[in-house]
């Protein structure tokens, strides 16, 4: 994919809507396209972070180990979403594993180029920083919401809406029957 095509692709992603044509070109010039098959591990939990990614087509699952033997799917990332940036900002190891859920097209930005963008002090660097900061702040807001739900649900008898949200968060939608049984209610919710 040529720089021009990458820049066109970037323009499509709402994440970059505040960037002008020249800035998109600058960004496109340092990005690399990657096509991955379903089940390709993009990076693993615990590894050092060497690049961040943007989903162009397809989807990517974020998974985390639960205990020693199990894995939980935390999120499914869709076109336009960014991942892997946290480890580049704070230089800690990867906090989760990312796996292509289907055949997908990604854009990769390597650490060195990310750092240049993030730290150069240019006008564009400032915009890029703000973009990253906003993405992380939104993720944090989302995580806070989930934590609040879990805390609420574990503290008292949750409402049906809260329970639905918790089940969605847990990653199973068919648990309502089980839950209703535990609550001594009819699974139809009547």
């Amino acid at each position, binding site marked *: 994919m040529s720089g021009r095509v990458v820049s066109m692709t970037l323009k499509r992603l709402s994440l970059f809507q505040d960037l002008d044509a020249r800035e998109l070109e600058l960004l496109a010039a340092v990005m690399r396209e990657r096509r991955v098959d379903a089940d390709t591990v993009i990076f693993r939990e615990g590894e050092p972070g060497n690049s961040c990614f943007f989903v162009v087509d397809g989807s990517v699952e974020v998974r985390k180990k*639960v205990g020693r033997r199990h894995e939980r799917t935390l999120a499914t990332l869709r076109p336009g979403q960014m991942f892997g940036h946290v480890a580049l900002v704070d230089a800690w190891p990867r906090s989760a594993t990312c796996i292509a859920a289907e055949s997908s097209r990604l854009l990769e930005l390597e650490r060195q180029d990310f750092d240049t963008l993030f730290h150069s002090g240019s006008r564009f660097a400032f915009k890029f920083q703000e973009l990253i*900061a906003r993405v992380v702040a939104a993720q944090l*807001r989302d995580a806070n919401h989930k934590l609040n739900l879990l805390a*609420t649900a574990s503290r*008292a008898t949750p409402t049906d809406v809260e329970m639905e949200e918790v089940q969605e968060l*847990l990653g199973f939608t068919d648990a309502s029957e089980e839950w209703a049984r535990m609550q001594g209610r009819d699974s139809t919710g009547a």
Partner: protein
Amino acid sequence: MSIQREALRAFREIPLLSSLSDDELYEIVRICTMRAYDPGEFVFRQGDEGRSLMIVASGRIEVVLEGDRTADAVARLGPGDVLGELSLIDAGPRSATAIATSETTVYELTGEAFETLRQQQHPAAYKIVRTLARVACARLRGVNERIEAYFDGRTPEPPKTGRFSGFDLASQPPDERGNSAVQGIRRIVQKFWRGTP
């Protein structure tokens, strides 16, 4: 000592502002407004649209979650502590309520004042945003860690109090005293695990 000089001295000690030079700090001091609250007065309410960062100059502020039935403070803040800093980059509603618990004064940096600084591409704004990105990442890891604790049976770490209280004021550890709901969730989780090859 002038208010400005006093503020400058206080601001030098704040991690969020630690990369700023004295000139840059002075610029921040210049655009801050001083606010005073009586004991029991709200600094802001959960769900408010307010966009401002506050640095406690004197007094005490407690942060509580309004939906929390236990009504315990999730953070207690004093001089030098910062609240609401992420609202500068993420204009969502306030995630918790802050109440003054004594005669309290704060330095307030409003979203508008910060926006002006940002449009001038002032180095102070640049440095604050960079630090905020790091703060947000650290907090995201912390919150995710606490979420995961619900899934692998560990007791979540109690919430941190003090500095950087703004956004991760999410929860108390689960009440373990015969709480059927948390056990219910865990049972569902365990059932799910057993079903996984």
